[in-house]
C-alpha cells in the first residue's frame, strides 16, 4: 500500500460561524480504497465531508486531491476536480422528478457510469422516473442520491451515512453497490454510525472524536480493536 494518496487531509480546521468544529483533522484516502470515518454524533464526521467539499463557513489547513490543493477553491470548482458528495439528508429535490434528479449533477470528468448501468445497480429507479423526487421511499431516495453522483465521472465519492434509517434488505443492497463500485475503481470515503455495515465494505477506518482523528486501523485489525472501538463509540 505505497500508492500516493488520492485525498490527503492535513490539519484541517473548520468553523460554522463562530463555533470551531474541526480542530486539525489528518488522514489519507488511497486510490480505490473504501475508507470509513467512525465516531459518535457530533465528532465532526459530516463536517469533515462538507469541508472536503468546500461547503462549510470557513476552513483552514490542507486538503489535496490528486496532489492539488483544494482549500481556497469554491465548492463548484472542487466538484469539477472529480469529487462528489451524497449528503446525509440525501438532498433529493422536490421540484424535480426522479429523472431530472438523476440527470442533475453535471458531468465533471469522462468515465462516469451510464444511466443504464445505474438502473442495473438500482432497478427500482427505472420504474419511478416520472415520480416527484421526494415521493420516493427513503431507500429509493438514497439509491437516487447515490446513483446521480455515479454519472458525473467523479472518482472520489463522499457518502454520508447512506444506511441511516433504512431497512436491512436495502442496507444490503447499498453494501453490494459499494463493493461493486470498488471493483469499478471508485474511491469511497464513507461516514457511518453503523460499523457492522461499515465492516462489510471498508478497507480502513479512522475514528474521530472532538473534531480530530484519534485512531486508525485496517479492516484486518478490526477484531483486535473491537474493545477499543466499543469505548470510542460508546456502544
Amino acid at each position: 500500500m505505497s500508492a500516493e494518496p488520492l485525498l490527503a487531509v492535513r490539519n484541517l480546521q473548520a468553523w460554522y460561524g463562530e463555533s470551531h468544529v474541526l480542530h486539525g483533522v489528518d488522514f489519507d484516502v488511497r486510490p480505490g480504497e473504501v475508507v470509513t470515518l467512525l465516531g459518535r454524533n457530533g465528532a465532526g464526521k459530516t463536517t469533515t465531508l462538507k469541508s472536503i467539499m468546500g461547503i462549510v463557513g470557513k476552513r483552514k489547513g490542507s486538503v489535496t486531491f490528486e496532489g492539488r490543493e483544494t482549500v481556497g477553491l469554491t465548492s463548484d470548482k472542487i466538484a469539477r476536480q472529480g469529487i462528489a458528495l451524497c449528503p446525509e439528508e440525501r438532498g433529493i429535490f422536490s421540484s424535480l422528478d426522479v429523472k431530472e434528479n438523476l440527470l442533475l449533477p453535471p458531468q465533471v470528468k469522462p468515465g462516469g457510469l451510464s444511466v443504464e448501468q445505474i438502473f442495473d445497480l438500482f432497478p427500482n429507479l427505472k420504474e419511478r422516473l416520472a415520480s416527484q423526487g421526494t415521493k420516493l421511499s427513503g431507500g429509493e431516495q438514497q439509491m437516487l442520491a447515490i446513483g446521480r453522483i455515479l454519472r458525473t465521472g467523479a472518482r472520489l465519492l463522499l457518502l454520508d451515512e447512506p444506511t441511516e434509517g433504512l431497512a436491512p434488505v436495502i442496507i444490503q443492497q447499498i453494501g453490494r453497490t459499494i463493493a461493486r463500485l470498488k471493483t469499478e475503481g471508485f474511491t469511497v470515503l464513507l461516514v457511518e454510525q453503523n460499523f457492522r455495515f461499515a465492516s462489510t465494505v471498508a478497507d480502513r477506518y479512522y475514528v474521530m472524536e472532538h473534531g480530530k482523528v484519534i485512531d486508525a486501523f485496517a479492516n484486518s485489525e478490526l477484531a483486535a480493536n473491537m474493545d477499543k472501538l466499543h469505548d470510542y463509540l460508546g456502544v
Partner: protein
Amino acid sequence: MFGIPTQALFSQLLLGLINGSFYALLSLGLAVIFGMLNIVNFAHGALYMMGAFVAWFLLGYAGIGYWGALILAPLAVGFVGVVIERTMLQRLAGLDHLYGLLLTFGLALVIQGVFQNQFGSSGMPYAIPPQLTGGQNLGFMFLPNYRAWVVVFSLVVCIATWFMIEKTRLGSYLRAATENPTLVRAFGVNVPLMITLTYGFGVGLAGLAGVLSAPINQVRPLMGADLIIVVFAVVVIGGMGSIMGSVITGFALGVIEGLTKVFYPEASNTVIFVIMAIVLLIKPAGLFGRAA
C-alpha cells in the same frame, strides 16, 4: 348582453387582455427573480420604463426601429440588471427579504428621478411599427393589429419561459438551485453566475414589456411606477415564485379588470386590490403559491 353593447364588452375585454399581457410579463419576471434570489424586486417598474426609453433612444439616436428594439432593449435592460446584481444585490445574500426590498425600492426612486429630471413627466410618443398599423374588422368589434400582436407575443414569451424553466435541463438547475443552492453548487454548477443571469433575464422581461408598451402608453419616466403597484397585487394573488401562476393570474386579472370597467366602472381601479385582500384572507400563500 345584460344591456351592454357587444362592442363595448369586447373592446374592454381586449383592453383587459392587453393590460393582462403586461401584468403577466412583469409578474413572471418578478416570480423568476423571487424564486431564485429571494428578492422582491421593487426596481422592476423602473426597469420596465427603461426598456421603453431604450427603444425610444434607439429610434431617435441610432435610427433603430421597433423590431431592433424588441431584441436590443431587453438585452440592454438585462445588462443593467446584471450590473445591479453583481455590484449591489449580491452583497445582500443571506440577509432578510426586507433589505433587498428596500435596496430595489431605493434604486427605483433613483432611476425614475434621473429620467424625470432629464425628460420631465409628460409622455413622448413612439410610433406603432408600419407592419402592425391598422386593424381587422371582426364584425362585432375593431381589432387593432398592434394590440393583437402584443397579446399573442406576450403569451408566446410567457409560455416559452415556462417551458424553459419547467421542461429543460437549464430549468432543472434553476429549480434545484431555488431549493438548495449549496448542494447544486457542490455538484459543480456555478450557482452565483446562474443567479446573476436569472436576475438579468427577469429584468430583461420587464425591458421587453417596456418596448411592447411604448407604442400604446407613450414613453414616460413614471410609466413603471403606476403599473408596478398593480403588478405586485397580481403577484400576491398568484403566489410568489410560481411561474405558471404568475402568467395565468396576470392575464386573468387584466380581463377581470376590463370586465369591471364594463359592468361597474366605479370599481375598475380597485377590483384587483379587493381580490388581493380576499385571496390573502382565504389563501395567504396565493392561488398558486406553496405554503412555506
